[in-house]
């Protein structure tokens, strides 16, 4: 069958790509890149904003086996209490828990690192399965790092209390990244992503508004996106380090977005590290988005995630080194807080008719041990 032939052709090409990256496979050759270090991490995360309260724990454990492979396992939980504006105006508040499990293996060969990962995410009405492969290669005396990655995700979409509703969504993501050491104090990185989505890309609970009446939303069944990001990190000696980033995003739904980030990190004494960061995000609406459509169109959505809006975030992080024995183990306790203000330009609060906006608080408490 054409599909099988294409799949086999694809597999051969991927192998050839790996081959050209790794050169001739010879046993027992010296390594130029180290395996990621062993570690155990625990995170407590919380997000409160716009009527949504999401919190939960997450853990990560990483261990290297016989100095050849590094395995890592993660568990992430999201307990969501949703009374967001969509929910309260068109339905009623609900609670839901999402569980996510991930496993990945890292293998180092000479200057290259290969990562294979799989992840599964479960919600009562949404199941997502993901597989990814990433290859990172150091070139040019270790001054340049080139990375290629691919992720494929398969989702099964369901609807609470409606067993007759069942649909699928598929996602492909191709990643290319380049990190370049500019000087002994400055680093630059470039990332390009191409994303492809296919299938049911909306929400069975969300409504669009056409001529003032609420109707179920109709989203296109395909979406193709591109994103490019550039980031700069610099060392300021005693004043710590600064970083700047900019990302441009565009897709076939006509959404264009700009993201600008800046951050500053500095050590205070032997045990403390402080960061402050700011982020600005702005996007234009999808071509089928409307707060209140005045024409009949094939696709229509009132999903505020696809509207014209901007958000500004400001946050800080404080890290305390609890125990440190260089080369043996390192335990850190980190607290993070970020406040983000969302301002919508063409999404209104149906209760008031005013343009919608809200502030969100994000908290993280994180314990990290490397050994």
């Amino acid at each position, binding site marked *: 069958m054409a599909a099988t032939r294409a799949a086999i052709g694809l597999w051969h090409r991927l192998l050839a790509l790996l081959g050209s990256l790794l050169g001739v496979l010879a046993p027992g050759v010296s390594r130029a890149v180290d395996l990621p270090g062993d570690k155990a991490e625990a995170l407590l995360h919380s997000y409160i904003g716009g009527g949504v309260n999401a919190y939960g724990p997450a853990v*990560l454990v990483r261990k290297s086996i016989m100095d050849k492979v590094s395995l890592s396992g993660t568990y992430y939980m999201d307990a969501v209490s949703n009374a967001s504006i969509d929910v309260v105006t068109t339905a009623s508040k609900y609670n839901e828990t999402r569980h996510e499990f991930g496993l990945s293996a890292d293998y180092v060969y000479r200057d290259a690192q290969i990562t294979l990962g799989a992840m599964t995410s479960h919600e009562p009405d949404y199941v997502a399965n993901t597989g990814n492969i990433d290859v990172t290669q150091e070139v040019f005396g270790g001054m340049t790092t080139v990375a290629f990655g691919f992720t494929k995700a398969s989702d099964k979409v369901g609807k609470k209390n409606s067993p007759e509703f069942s649909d699928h969504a598929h996602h492909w993501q191709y990643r290319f990244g380049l990190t370049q050491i500019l000087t002994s104090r400055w680093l630059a990185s470039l990332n390009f*992503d191409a994303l492809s989505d296919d299938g049911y890309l909306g929400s069975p609970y969300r409504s669009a508004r056409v001529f003032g009446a609420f109707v179920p939303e109709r989203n296109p069944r395909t979406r193709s996106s591109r994103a490019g990001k550039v980031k700069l990190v610099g060392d300021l000696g005693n004043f710590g380090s600064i970083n700047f980033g900019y990302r441009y995003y565009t897709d076939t739904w006509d959404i264009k977005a700009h993201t600008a980030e800046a951050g500053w990190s500095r050590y205070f004494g032997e045990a403390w590290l402080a960061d402050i960061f700011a982020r600005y995000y702005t*996007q234009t609406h999808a071509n089928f988005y409307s707060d209140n459509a005045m024409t009949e169109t094939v696709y229509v959505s009132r999903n505020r995630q696809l509207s014209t809006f901007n958000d500004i975030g400001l946050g800080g992080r404080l890290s305390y080194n609890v125990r440190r024995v260089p080369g043996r183990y390192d335990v850190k306790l980190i607290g993070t807080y970020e406040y983000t203000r969302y301002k919508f330009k063409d999404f209104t609060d149906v209760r008031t008719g005013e343009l919608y906006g809200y502030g969100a608080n994000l908290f993280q408490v994180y314990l990290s041990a490397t050994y």
Partner: protein
Amino acid sequence: MTILRALACAALLGATLLAGCSVPKLEPWVKPYERERLADPIMKLSRDSLPDKHFEHVRDVREGARGATGVQGGGCGCN
């Protein structure tokens, strides 16, 4: 896939142009023993994976844009 094609074409063109002439060999200008500042965790592009995962999830759910979040590089460059 036009961006990838354009990138591939540009790279191929660059390679063919360079193949013909003798380009002075470009040496790495930051030596491994000069990477002390770059090896510091404060210079990492992404410090902690779990917290970054949380940030990315929060933004993915609320913003239309996705992707291009990062790749690791730099560091001590040892071994």
